[in-house]
């Protein structure tokens, strides 16, 4: 099945020479479409960029400018941008993709186009 399964193909990461980190993702599928959740802590709503091109869904998250908190004593958090690319299921209606950002969790809803949705047909 060519659904949102392959991610981060080599071509997707070569466009710019910036280090990216891959956000953790959960993907659910139901009859109507897909729900994709990505963890992007530190990214505000306006730092998110979602593009659909050549059958690929690209999600980028840029962290908001951090203020200076002084001398770092201990650091684990990365400052890199988040980026992840998925192959888009052709049955998805690219015009109907919606997304919301809530406390660093990006939720993307991908609806299937009407033509491929499962439907019940009543026998007359």
């Amino acid at each position, binding site marked *: 099945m060519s*659904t*949102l*399964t392959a991610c981060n193909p080599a071509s997707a990461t070569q466009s710019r020479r910036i280090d990216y980190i891959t956000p*953790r*993702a*959960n*993907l*659910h*599928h*139901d*009859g109507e479409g*897909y*729900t994709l*959740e990505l*963890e*992007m*802590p*530190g*990214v*505000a709503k306006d730092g998110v960029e979602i593009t659909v091109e050549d059958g690929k869904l690209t999600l980028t998250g840029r962290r*908001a400018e951090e203020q200076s*908190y*002084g*001398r*770092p*004593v*201990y*650091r*684990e*958090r*990365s400052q890199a941008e988040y980026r992840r690319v998925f192959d888009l299921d052709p049955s998805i209606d690219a015009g109907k993709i919606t997304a919301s950002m*809530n*406390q*660093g*969790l990006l939720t993307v809803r991908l609806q299937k186009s009407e033509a491929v949705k499962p439907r019940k047909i009543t026998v007359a």
Partner: protein
Amino acid sequence: MSIIKYRNPELTTWSSFDRLSSLRDLLDSAFQLAGNASGFPENWTPALDVFEDEEKVTVRVELAGVTKDDFDISLQDDVLTISGERKAEAEQRGSESFRSERYFGTFTRSVTLPSPVKPDEVKAAYQDGVLTVTLPKAEEAKPRKIQVNLE
């Protein structure tokens, strides 16, 4: 050439039972690893940064997807502890999971602060999934200018 007593390989001593039991131990430990039914690790450790300047210590923790009500911040002596739970959203009916990389469940992170702080003036803010705890330094920890009279 010497004569060696024939031993049936199928019945060689008790060592084969030892091998069997060690195989069982191995299997048990494998099942223990995958033990919890949820399929997620029992707990996770959020990434954390600590900063320090003359006035304060700042601790920043990545908690994406955890709601404000689901974590606690406590300070005991010079140890700051952040604990809580990331709750999985209720599964939608009839949905199947294609990817589950996110961690859910409880977490605890403790960090020893680099200098003494004023426990009554600790502030916390939660934005974009990052918790920022600001801990003003205790007076005795702040750098002081001392006037030295030269004679």
